[in-house]
C-alpha cells in the first residue's frame, strides 16, 4: 500500500508552518507535502503520481501569487488524474463569488476560514480523508484509528458481506 499524500498549498511560510504543525497527528499515516506556489504544487502532484503514489487531500490558500486558489482547485477537478482528490480552501479572503463558483464547478469540497483552530482543521481533514479512502482505497483497516473509525468499520463490514 502506498502512502496517501496531504498537500498544503500556502505561500506564507509562517502560515504554512502552522498548518504543518496542526497536521502532525496525521503525519504517521499520511505523507505531508508543502508547496508555496501553484507550480510547485503541480510538481509535487506529478512527482507523487509518477512514484505511483496518490494525493488524497489538498489544503489550498485562496490568494496565491499569480492564481486564485479556487481557479487551481477547479483546474485539478477537471483533470481525471486529480479529480478524486479532496479539495479544501483555507483562506481569510475568498470573495463570495469565487467560492460559489468553486462549489458549483465542483472544485471545492470544504471551506476553512482563517484563522482556524486545530480542532476544526482536524475535523475537516479527518472527514475529507475518510471520504477519500472510502471512495478510492480498498483496504480501509489501516485508517480506522486515525480517520472516522465507525464509518470505516461500517464500510468494512458492508464490503465484507458483499464479498
Amino acid at each position, binding site marked *: 500500500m502506498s502512502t496517501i499524500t496531504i498537500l498544503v498549498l500556502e505561500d506564507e511560510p509562517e502560515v*504554512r*508552518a502552522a498548518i504543518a*504543525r496542526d497536521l502532525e497527528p496525521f503525519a504517521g499515516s499520511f505523507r505531508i*507535502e508543502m508547496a*508555496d506556489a501553484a507550480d510547485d504544487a503541480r*510538481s*509535487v502532484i506529478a512527482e507523487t503520481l509518477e512514484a505511483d503514489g496518490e494525493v488524497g487531500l489538498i489544503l489550498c490558500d485562496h490568494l496565491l501569487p499569480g492564481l*486564485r486558489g479556487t481557479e487551481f482547485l477547479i483546474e485539478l477537478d477537471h483533470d481525471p488524474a486529480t479529480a478524486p482528490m479532496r479539495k479544501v480552501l483555507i483562506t481569510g479572503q475568498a470573495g463570495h463569488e469565487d467560492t460559489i463558483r468553486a462549489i458549483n464547478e465542483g472544485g471545492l469540497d470544504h471551506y476553512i476560514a482563517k484563522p482556524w483552530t486545530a480542532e476544526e482543521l482536524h475535523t475537516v481533514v479527518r472527514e475529507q480523508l475518510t471520504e477519500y479512502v472510502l471512495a478510492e482505497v480498498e483496504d480501509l483497516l489501516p485508517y480506522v484509528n486515525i480517520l472516522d473509525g465507525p464509518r470505516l468499520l461500517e464500510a468494512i463490514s458492508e464490503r465484507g458481506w458483499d464479498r
Partner: protein
Amino acid sequence: MTDRSVILMAAADSIERDRLRDQVDDLTTEVVRVEVVSGPAELRARLQELSAAGTVVPLVIIDEELESADGEMHSAATEVGAAVLQRSSPSAAAELETARKRIRRLQRTFFGDSGLSDDEVEEAMIEEIDRALDHPERVVYPPGTILLEENQPVDGIQIVMAGRVRLFRHVEGHDVIFHSRTAGRIVGLSATALRQPAAFTAQAVTELTAIPVSFEQLETALQKSQSLSIHLVDVLVRSLARRNLRTVEQRVHIDRLARELAVERDQLANALARLEQAQTRLIESEKMATLGQLVAGVAHELNNPVAAIERGADFLTEDIERLSAVHPRSDVVLASLERARTQAPLATREERELRRDLATELGDGALADRLVGLGIHTGAGAADLLEGLSEAERDARLDEMELYYRLGRSVRNLRSSASRIASHVKSLRSYARADREKRTDVSIEEGMEESLMLLNHKLGDIELVRAYSAVPPMTGFAGELNQVWTNLLSNAIQAMTDTGTLTVATRAPDPGHVEATITDTGPGIAEEDLARIFDLHFTTKEGRVEFGLGLGLTITRDIVERHNGTIEVESRPGQTTFRVTLPVDGVDATEHATKD
C-alpha cells in the same frame, strides 16, 4: 446741379441793376444765383416756374421805379414766402438782413452742413411756419396734458417752444419711457409725415408753450414756403436719424446687457457646480474622517495585543533558553532552537530537493526528511550530531531536537507575524491619517506603496510593474495624496477586470517637480468620455461607490490642484495613463487640508 435757390431782381435799366446787384453780391454763391426780370408780369411767371421746379426764392429785390402803386410785385413775392427788398422801404436794411439769414441757412442745409444745430434747424422751421401762417397762436398746456396718444391718429404737429415733453409707450403693463432727444421739439412730425398713428404717447411734464399746427395748416404753409419744406424734411430726417441712432444705441445696449446676463448666468452655473463639488468633497472628507477614526480606533485596539505577542515571543525565547541551559545536551538543543529562530524559511521546492539529495547521501529517506526539517542539510552536519548513537538513541535525540526546533520556529513565526500586523496597522494609520493632517514632506513612492498594499487583494492576476526613480520629497498633505493614488490605482485595476499589467512610475521631470504615472492595459476610455472624465458625477462604474475608495476623479483633481499640481489622462485601447505632476513646493502654507 439744379437750382436750389434764386434771387429774383426786378430792375428797369442796367445802371439800376448793377447798383442793386452790388447790394446782394455777398449773397450769391454756388447755390444762390441772381436772376433778373424786367417787370411784374415776368416776375410772376418766373416765380411760378421756379416754385413748380422746387426752387426756393428767398429774396425778391424790386426797383422802386418798377413797383406799381398797388404793390403787385410785392404781393407776388410774399405769396411764395420770399423776402422783399425795396430800396425806398424804411425797413430795407432789416429785410435784407432776414434775407441774408435765410440764404445762409439754406446754403448750409443744402450742403448737408452739420454746422447747423438741431435747434437752429427747428428755429428756422418755426420761423418759416410763422411767416407762412402769419404767426400762429402760441398755446399754453398745463403739466400732464396728453399732446398725442399712442396708436391714435395724428391730426397735426405741436411745435414746443418752452417746457419738457415725455414720450412713452405702454408695453405689457409698463410705461417704457423714451429718451427726450428721440423726438426733439416737434411732436408728431414723423407720424404726420409717415401718415401713421402715433407710435407713442406724448405728455407735458412741465407747463408747455407750443404752436399747434394742424395738418391743413401745414399743407398751406408748405405750399406758401419752399424753404419750409426743405427745413421740414431736414427736421424729419434729423429726427428719424436720431431715432435710428437711438435704436442702434439701444440695440448695442441690449446686446451688452444680454452678454452681461450670459456671463452672470455662467457664473451662477459655475458657482452651483462648485457648490455641488464642495458638498461632495465635504461628504467624502467626512467619510474619510470617519474611516480615519475607525482605523485609528482599530489600530489602537490591535497595537496592544500585537505588543503583547511580540513581547511574549521574546519572553518565550529567554525562558526556553533558561530551561534548556539545564538540559543534559543543552548545546545540541539550543543549537536547534537557534537554527529555527534564525534560518529563513526555504522555498518548498528547494526543501524537497535538499531532502532528496540528503536521502541519496544517507541512503535513508525518513532520516533525510527529519534532518532537513531540522535545518540540517548535509551529511556532514548529520554526522556531527548523530555519530556513534544507536538507532534508539538517535531517534530520541532527533525527537528532542525537533521539539526545540519547533519551539524556535513558533517563536520566530510569532515574531514575524506580529511585526507584519504592526506594519499593516502602521500603514493603515498612515493611509487614513488618523493624525490631524499637517503639511509634511511627502514621499510619492511611499504613498503609492501604502495605497498598493491596501489594494493588493484586488490585484488578482494583474501583473504589477514598479518603475520608481529617485525623486525628491514634496510638501503636501500625505493623506490627501494617498487618496489620489488609491483612486487612480483602484480605477486602473477595475479597468482591467482580471488580467493585465499595472505600471506605477515616478520621476522628476525637472528639479522643481515630481511626476507619478499610473498606466493600465484596460480597454481605454472612449474619446467622448475623455473630455468629461473629471466632471462631477461622471462614472463608468454604474454609480457604484466604494467606501473610502473610488472617491471620484473630481475629488482627485481637486486634491492635485490644491497642491498646485496638474493631472492629465491619455488613453487608447489597451493603454490608459494618468499623469500627476506636483511641484516640490506643493501646497502653500496657508492651505489647509479638507479635514482640518
